[in-house]
């Protein structure tokens, strides 16, 4: 093949291809298409010629002001680098794989992609269920022993998990406060009620309504009410007394 011939071929190929870069599935796909114009077994492909073709294509495409995706340009830069490696004598101080090794790998990638495409075509050409061969058409109507079982798919499971994990109102590590009667609440309640306590009264009678039934709630309310009564005693609003250890604690309003 003379230079002029290959130039013509290159141009024809490029012109045929510069229609829509989006028509290609990425640089490798484009390279594979270009390599077909060499009309040889992919194992004997000239990577150098291919690199030139690709660079020519990218050059033209830029001329035509086509928007070229970054990965096409990255490939172009890499192929230019490869080209220089293939053309220049190897530099022994250079590290990394040689130009030939890189070229061989590219050829391998192209061959593998091409092989996968052929395999995909072969696969789809096989006889397929519900198209070429068939499963039983009638589902057997048999004695119904109604045993209910529940099912879910992996997709359900993963989506369920994702739903929880991406929930906007997700609050990590927050204690459940439903059963907690805070000291602030106890204080407010005691302050409101103490005006009526002229006589000694058991502090347990100041627990909020309904909280004495649930054990958890009663404990919390007792503790906060006790703490609140200490606070009020400190403020001089009430007096407290306990006759014997463990006997009921009583409070009453302090006059003045």
């Amino acid at each position, binding site marked *: 093949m003379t230079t002029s011939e290959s130039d013509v071929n290159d141009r024809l190929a490029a012109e045929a291809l510069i229609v829509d870069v989006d028509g290609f599935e990425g640089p490798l796909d484009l390279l594979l298409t270009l390599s077909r114009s060499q009309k040889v077994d992919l194992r004997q492909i000239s990577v150098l010629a291919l690199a030139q073709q690709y660079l020519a294509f990218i050059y033209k495409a830029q001329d035509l002001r086509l928007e070229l995706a970054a990965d096409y340009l990255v490939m172009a830069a890499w192929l230019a680098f490869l080209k220089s490696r293939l053309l220049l004598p190897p530099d022994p101080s250079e590290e990394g794989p040689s130009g030939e090794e890189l070229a061989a790998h590219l050829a391998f990638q192209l061959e593998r992609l091409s092989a996968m495409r052929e395999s995909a075509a072969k696969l789809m050409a096989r006889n397929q269920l519900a198209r070429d061969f*068939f*499963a*039983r*058409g*009638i*589902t*057997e109507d*048999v*004695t*119904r*022993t*109604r*045993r*209910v*079982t*529940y*099912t*879910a*798919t*992996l*997709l*359900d*499971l*993963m*989506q*369920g*998990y*994702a*739903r*929880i*994990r*991406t*929930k*906007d*109102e*997700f*609050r*990590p*590590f927050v204690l*459940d406060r439903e059963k907690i009667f805070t000291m602030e609440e106890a204080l407010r309640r005691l302050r409101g009620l103490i005006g009526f306590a002229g006589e000694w009264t058991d502090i347990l009678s100041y627990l909020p309504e309904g909280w004495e039934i649930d054990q958890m709630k009663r404990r919390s309310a007792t503790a906060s009410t006790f703490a609140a009564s200490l606070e009020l005693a400190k403020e001089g609003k009430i007096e407290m007394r306990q006759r014997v250890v463990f006997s009921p604690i009583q409070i009453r309003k302090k006059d003045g």
Partner: protein
Amino acid sequence: MSKLNTDTQIIKNPEESLFDSPLMAEQERMVEAILFAAADPVTIKELQGRMPHGCDAAEALVYLRKRYDGRGVSLVKIGDAWALRTASDMGFLMQKETVETRKLSRAAVETLAIIAYHQPVTRAEIEEIRGVSVSRGTVDQLIELEWIRFGRRRLTPGRPVTFVVTQDFLDHFGLESARDLPGLEELRSAGLLESRPVMWTGDVTVYETEDDISDASDQTEMFVDT
């Protein structure tokens, strides 16, 4: 068992030669395939219409009926149409076919997912992650399905019981191990996650206490290759 031995019949019974003629044998195969795949019983007229020109569906049916005589499947006539049905004495084998499957509730799916991703996990932890309390029925249902079971107790105050997923769970969901469950990033890149702002990134499983770490190694053992 009256297993037809066709070869000997040819010799013994020349007038049945049609039975063995490739053409009629082919026709019989066609009728067999059509009846097998059909969603409803098929009339002779329909059969005839679908078979190549010159076929005799009625005759093919005679041979086919004979072929299925005494088999686990029989050729039956329903009105003026024909169908292949399992032999009536085989009904006792069909009970498993009638299990009614229902979709698992959202609460159960979420609880199951949390157990799978965080095992071994306590009920309190599940509730914390879901943000709502877990009903007794949900856990019972998952245990009954044999998808979860009790794991070892957590060595924390109250020694709460933990939950782990079972081998049945892995089988059902086609997983080799619970470690193969995809993480959030992978779910997103597979397009399985609605694109919403994520509040919580990073790895899903966080082992914080000594105890958890030892549990984690237990889990690894549990799913080790055999």
